[in-house]
């Protein structure tokens, strides 16, 4: 059963509907959306991703768009509403241009097909243009109007001017996301967090990447307090209670080990076959076996005691015998610790988790400064004390980070430094909010802020090979790092210091409020004039004008309440730092443009949608008579 419709018209209408949904929350004057569940939970949010993902959407195009927005925001952390606005305006402009001059070079079944093909062609041209020339254009015409804040400046003192810019950038981000009231406080807190973590490495944005990847383990959400109670505390917080009573310790470095497996072999698992009494003259029974396991446990604990270990962390839940023996030996035991936290612990302390408990090497032992329980949360909740620990001396092995490094940095690391020894005092972030939904929102805002900062300071190499790689990365970046690692052919030794090769400098920020769009609009128009003047190939001319006119939709919406200000801002070309609209990052905007163009291309490739009543297997795709790829919706 297939239901047929005219997809070209409905692209615009679907995205138009999504645009109508987010328009009211867009811009500094935008409002919040109140979500209520049938269970009575309510949440206020202004985050575009939250709003779009909360909608009930069964239309496949709408779901595709929301998926693109979500993927984009997991990379850059910002710009989901601007994404939808740009997408809608680009689709409208492409539609207008295509209906005006449909290609009649090929023979199509109908004029609708001709228009759809023209639109697809235009979108491909746009994307090609953006990938080839847009970053140069931005670097030459737009970035000079902004300011480049280098990471070294930022990592200087707390109240330096560079720090002031970063704080302003964060403040405008939080203003848009969370509202005016607490944005200053939250941005200060974020700056403090960054300052504490920045000395993790000499590489510029390594700290940001580390924070971004380990954010779930670094922060603790606590509901029931006002946001202003949020603070940083020293050490890492592990979100579990002690399984054994916590003994008092005197001041000596506390040794800890991490176990990944079970200390006492489990007796009766499903599928296990226990052969008792085989091959021996004496009769054995299960009781003997369990006695033997307990004796071996005692040996293990004695071994640990001799090594001076007093804290045991475990991924899995250990048996009662283990806990009893640990209590007897006055060791604290924490079990069921989550994987993220254990990996963070391992990275910070340099201790590898023990998989085989009979071989405990010195490298498995971590040294801690303190270890104590913390009570976080109001008394009326269950008392769930946490305990925190911190590391005095940290050895970071480069090989721990191989899985998460961009390829250009792999070069630098391998070539210059192999083992980095840095002293770092980890700090954890306690995020408080009035309700669970609010706390969750604040935590997401923090995480997005760090992602945004990471995107801002990430160097964008301008070589051709990496530009091609970016087509893979720019939309679906969640697994891009592992992608990039496997492609070792692009690793050349000439690519040593990516910072010098960048056309677009990292850390470039501009005043917000549509400045980027205006400047790029003028630059694109200039480019199209110069192209037509020099009688160049016709590729760039119509698409750059199309992009230029589509870009203006964003500032139009920002200034929708005051058209006079729109005109005023449009005519001023010089750097406008006096206007108090805040700051925004140029790299994020560039990424946004690329992501939008990719989304447009994939949307316009949809010719028809087939509704099926049974779930399709991924291998068998029904083929239809249409020329391009189809989207299949499962119903």
């Amino acid at each position, binding site marked *: 059963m297939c239901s047929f419709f005219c997809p070209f018209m409905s692209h615009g*209408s679907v995205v138009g509907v999504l645009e109508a949904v987010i328009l009211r929350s867009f811009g500094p004057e935008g409002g919040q959306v109140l979500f209520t569940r049938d269970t009575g939970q309510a949440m206020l949010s202004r985050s575009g991703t939250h709003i779009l993902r909360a909608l009930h959407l*069964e239309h496949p195009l709408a779901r595709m768009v929301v998926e693109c927005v979500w993927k984009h925001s997991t990379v850059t952390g910002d710009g989901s509403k601007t994404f939808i606005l740009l997408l809608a305006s680009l689709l409208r402009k492409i539609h207008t241009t295509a209906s005006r001059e449909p290609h*009649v070079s090929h023979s199509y079944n109908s004029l609708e097909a001709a228009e759809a093909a023209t639109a697809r062609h235009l979108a491909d041209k746009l994307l090609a243009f953006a990938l080839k020339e847009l970053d140069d254009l931005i670097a030459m015409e737009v970035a000079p109007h902004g300011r480049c804040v280098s990471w070294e400046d930022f990592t200087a003192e707390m109240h330096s001017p560079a720090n002031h810019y970063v704080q302003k950038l964060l403040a405008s981000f939080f203003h848009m996301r969370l509202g005016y009231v607490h944005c200053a406080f939250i941005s200060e807190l974020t700056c403090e967090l960054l300052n504490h973590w920045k000395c993790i490495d000499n590489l510029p944005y390594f700290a940001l990447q580390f924070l971004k990847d380990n954010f779930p383990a670094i922060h603790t959400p606590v509901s029931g307090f006002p946001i202003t109670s949020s603070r940083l505390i020293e050490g890492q917080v592990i979100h579990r209670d002690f399984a054994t009573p916590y003994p008092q310790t005197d001041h000596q470095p506390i040794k800890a080990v991490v176990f990944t497996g079970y200390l006492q072999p489990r007796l009766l698992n499903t599928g296990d076959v226990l052969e008792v009494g085989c091959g021996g003259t004496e009769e054995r029974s299960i009781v003997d076996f369990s006695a033997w396991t307990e004796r071996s446990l005692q040996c293990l604990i004695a071994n640990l005691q001799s090594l001076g270990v007093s804290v045991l962390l475990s991924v899995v839940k250990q048996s009662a015998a283990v806990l009893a023996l640990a209590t007897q030996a006055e060791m604290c035991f924490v079990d069921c610790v989550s994987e993220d936290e254990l990996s963070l612990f391992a990275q910070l302390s340099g201790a590898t988790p023990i998989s085989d408990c009979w071989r405990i090497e010195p490298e498995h032992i971590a040294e801690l400064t303190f270890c104590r329980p913390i009570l976080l949360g109001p008394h009326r909740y269950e008392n769930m004390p946490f305990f925190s620990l911190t590391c005095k001396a940290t050895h970071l092995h480069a090989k721990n980070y191989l899985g998460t490094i961009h390829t250009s940095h792999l070069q630098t690391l391998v070539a210059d430094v192999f083992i980095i020894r840095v002293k770092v005092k980890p700090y954890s972030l306690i995020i408080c909010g009035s309700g669970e939904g609010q706390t969750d929102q604040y935590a997401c805002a923090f995480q997005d802020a760090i992602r945004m900062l990471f995107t801002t300071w990430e160097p964008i190499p301008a070589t051709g090979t990496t530009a091609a790689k970016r087509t893979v990365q720019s939309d679906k970046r969640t697994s891009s790092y592992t992608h990039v690692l496997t492609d070792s052919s692009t690793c050349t030794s000439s690519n040593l210091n990516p910072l010098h090769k960048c056309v677009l400098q990292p850390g470039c920020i501009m005043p917000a409020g549509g400045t980027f769009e205006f400047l790029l609009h003028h630059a694109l128009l200039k480019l199209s004039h110069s192209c037509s003047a020099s009688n160049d190939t016709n590729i760039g001319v119509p698409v750059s004008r199309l992009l230029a006119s589509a870009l203006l939709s964003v500032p139009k919406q920002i200034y929708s309440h005051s058209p006079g200000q729109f005109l005023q801002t449009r005519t001023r070309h010089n750097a406008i730092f006096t206007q108090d609209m805040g700051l925004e990052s140029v790299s994020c905007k560039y990424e946004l443009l690329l992501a939008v163009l990719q989304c447009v291309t994939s949307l316009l490739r949809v010719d028809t949608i087939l509704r099926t009543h049974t779930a399709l297997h991924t291998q068998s795709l029904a083929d239809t008579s249409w020329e391009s790829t189809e989207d299949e919706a499962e119903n």
Partner: protein
Amino acid sequence: MFCDMESLLACVGSQCIFCTGKELANISHLSKKHLKDAVYFNINNEEKFVVACFCKDSKWTSRSHYHCPHCKFRAFTRSAVFKKHLKSKHGDEDFEWEPPSEAEMKVIQARRERQDKISKLMGDYLLKGYKMLGDCCDVCGTILLQDRQQKKYCVSCQELDSDIDKDNPALNAQAALSQVRERQLAAQSPAPSQTPELNGGPSNGQPSVSVPQPRPEHCEGAAAGGRALLPPPAVPPPPAAPSTTALAPTRPAVCPQNPALRPVLQEAEEAVLTKLRWATTQLQGAASLEASIQLCSLITSCANSLRSLKELSQ
């Protein structure tokens, strides 16, 4: 496809063949609604034009479309696209892409506004918790929404005023209300209709009734007949029919009593009388409810105009 106006006017009749609803196909209707949107082209140095229709021959039954005279199975909804097709497929070189004319611009603008309104309404519903389905409405092509009670809902059909069905009392509450009012008024009108003066209810009642303005094309004839004096009433009730037929014979009896009218008034009276006669003959032969209703309204307006003319002449 037509060559000139006369052949188009040959389509004058009680039922417009180009409209989807029951339309009175008189000259004004044809020229205002259909000729305005006609697409002109040249065949063998003869200028011809194609008029938009709503027929069921093509897949577009609820949108006006043009049939290409050369390839009979093709239908186009937009005149610009049709012109392009003529140029590319049938070699009419006269039509390059030209910027849309003002009429077309208005149509495009109206369509865009309607689309924006639809998008905004749908966005509001989505935020209220409705689900956006993957289906489109059969009638208008808009994306369907589904509410919590699993009921499907089309925003443009059920909420926005459709272009055609505004005056159908079965679909529109306002039109039904105005019909009820008209019926009430017509209940007063049989009493004074027996008197030669006819200064009673209809003329006084109608201006005070606030009826919604129907589309002018619906009662073109009525509008043409009664435009100088009163806004045309919406839907006069059928019970007025026997009283108005009683009216008609009395009317000519009244007018010849004043032979000293000024020539202009006399001409106007004659025109109105002609129209009245025609309407009466049409009414006698009318088979459908809508047509009868409209003819009755025409007759009422003619009566009113005659009355006013009579007052003027006195």
